[in-house]
C-alpha cells in the first residue's frame, strides 16, 4: 500500500459508479492496471453497482417490442430461388455483357480501394472511417473521421451553423465508459483533431457538448 493506493481507494466507490472524470480517472485507471489489490477493491464496489441495477423493477415490455427488435436486427430470410436451373442456363452473351458493364462501373472503385490501402500502408494505419455528426433533431451538423493506426486519432469538423459555444467533447465507449477529449477546441475553420488513447472500434458515440441552452452534437460510430 502506498500513497497511490490510498488515493485510489478513496475514490473506489465513485470509480465503480463511473462518475470519476478527467485526470483523476486517468490516474486511477493507470494505477489500477498495476495494482491488483486496488483493482479487487474497485471490483467489490462494482459488484454492488451490478446488484443495484438488478433491483430496478421488472416491467412488461410494450406489445410487439420483441418483434420490432428482431425485425431491426435480423436479416429477412431470402426467398427461395425456384428457377435456379434457368438462371444457370442464361445466355452466355448476356453474362458477358453484364460482366463488361460491371467492370466498367467498379473499376474506379477498385482503383480507389487500392489507393486507400496504399495510403494506410504508407501511414502504418489499419482503417480510416467517417461518421456524420447530427443535432438532437437529426439534422446534419458535421463529420468526424477516425483513424486506426499508431497513434489512433480523430478529426472533427463542424458546419458553420453549429459551431457556436461547443465547449467539450467526449467519447462514450461500448462499455458505457466516457473518455473526455481534452484537446477539443474548434479552430476558426471549425475543425479540431487529436490523438485518442482508445481503440476506435470500441467507440460507440462522440458527443460535442455546448454551454447551457444549446443542443449537443452526436456522431454514432456503430451506425
Amino acid at each position, binding site marked *: 500500500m502506498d500513497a497511490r493506493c490510498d488515493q485510489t481507494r*478513496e475514490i473506489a*466507490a*465513485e470509480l*465503480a*459508479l*463511473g*462518475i470519476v*472524470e478527467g485526470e483523476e480517472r486517468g490516474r486511477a485507471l493507470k494505477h489500477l492496471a498495476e495494482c491488483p489489490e486496488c483493482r479487487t477493491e474497485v471490483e*467489490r*464496489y*462494482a*459488484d*454492488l*453497482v*451490478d*446488484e*443495484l*441495477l*438488478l*433491483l*430496478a*423493477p*421488472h*416491467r*412488461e*415490455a*410494450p406489445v410487439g*417490442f*420483441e418483434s*420490432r*427488435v*428482431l425485425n*431491426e*436486427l*435480423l*436479416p429477412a430470410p431470402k426467398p427461395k430461388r425456384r428457377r435456379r436451373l434457368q438462371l444457370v442456363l442464361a445466355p452466355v452473351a448476356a453474362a458477358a455483357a453484364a460482366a463488361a458493364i460491371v467492370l466498367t462501373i467498379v473499376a474506379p472503385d477498385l482503383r480507389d480501394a487500392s489507393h486507400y490501402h496504399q495510403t494506410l500502408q504508407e501511414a502504418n494505419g489499419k482503417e480510416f472511417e467517417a461518421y456524420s455528426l447530427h443535432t*438532437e433533431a437529426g439534422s446534419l451538423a458535421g463529420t468526424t473521421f477516425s483513424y486506426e493506426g499508431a497513434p489512433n486519432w480523430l478529426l472533427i469538423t463542424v458546419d458553420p451553423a453549429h459551431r457556436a459555444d461547443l465547449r467539450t467533447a467526449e467519447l*462514450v465507449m*461500448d*462499455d*458505457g465508459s466516457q473518455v473526455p477529449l481534452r484537446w477539443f477546441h474548434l479552430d476558426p475553420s471549425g475543425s479540431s483533431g487529436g490523438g485518442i488513447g482508445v481503440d476506435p472500434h*470500441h467507440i*460507440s*458515440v462522440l458527443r460535442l457538448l455546448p454551454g447551457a441552452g444549446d443542443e*449537443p452534437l*452526436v456522431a454514432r460510430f*456503430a451506425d
Partner: protein
Amino acid sequence: MNALHGVSFTFSASCVTPLARTTRSATPGIARCPIQDGAIDVVTDVDPSDESLLAGFATGDPRTAAAFVRRFQGRVFGLALTIVRQPAIAEEVAQETFTRVYRHAGNYDARKGRVSTWLLSIARNLAIDHTRMKRLDPVDPEVIAAEISIENQVPGAEEGMQPDERDDLRSAITDLPDDQRRALVLTAYMGRTAKEISDLDDVPLGTVKTRIRTAMLKLRSELEVAE
C-alpha cells in the same frame, strides 16, 4: 434461471444451443450443435444459460435471438423506464440496448460479470444519455428509491443473489439516511457526478463525496455479510 415460453431447443451434455451460421464472433467456450432437420423441436426441461442465448443472439439465429430478447426485455425496459420515466423513450432505450448488445456481443467477457448486469449497464448508460440529450425533467430520486425498495420482480427474474439477500440490500437502502440515499440514487441510477450533485443540492463537494462513499460502504458491507 428463467423459463422460456414457447421456445424449444435441442440439448445434450456438450451442445447447449442451436446456432445458425456464424457471421460474428460468439462467446468463447460455448459448444455448438449441428442442426439436423427434424431435431430442432425436441423439448427439454433444461434452460439454456444466458451466455448461450447471447452467443445465439449474436449469430442471428432467429429462435435463440427471440429467446434472448424475451428473457431480458422486461428487466431492460423496467430499468430504462425507472430512469427516463416515459414509456416511449424507455422503449427506444431498450431497443437500442439490444441493438448495442447484438453488435458488440463479441466484447462480452464472462469473467467480468453476468450477461444480465452487462446488459443492464448498457441500458443504464443509454438511458442516462437519453435523459441528458432530450433534457428530460429530472426525476425525484426518492421516487426511484421507493421503486427499487419494493420487491416487485416477476418470479425467477432475479439472479445472482438469493431473494432474501436482495431483500437485505433493499432494506439497507431504505435504512440509509435521506441525504445518503439521495446521493446514491443520483449517482447509481441517474449518472450524476459528485460535482453535479453538489451544484444541484447546493452542498459542498466534499460532503457529497462523503455521502456517496458512506452509502456505498454500508451497502457493500450488507452485501458481503449476506454472502
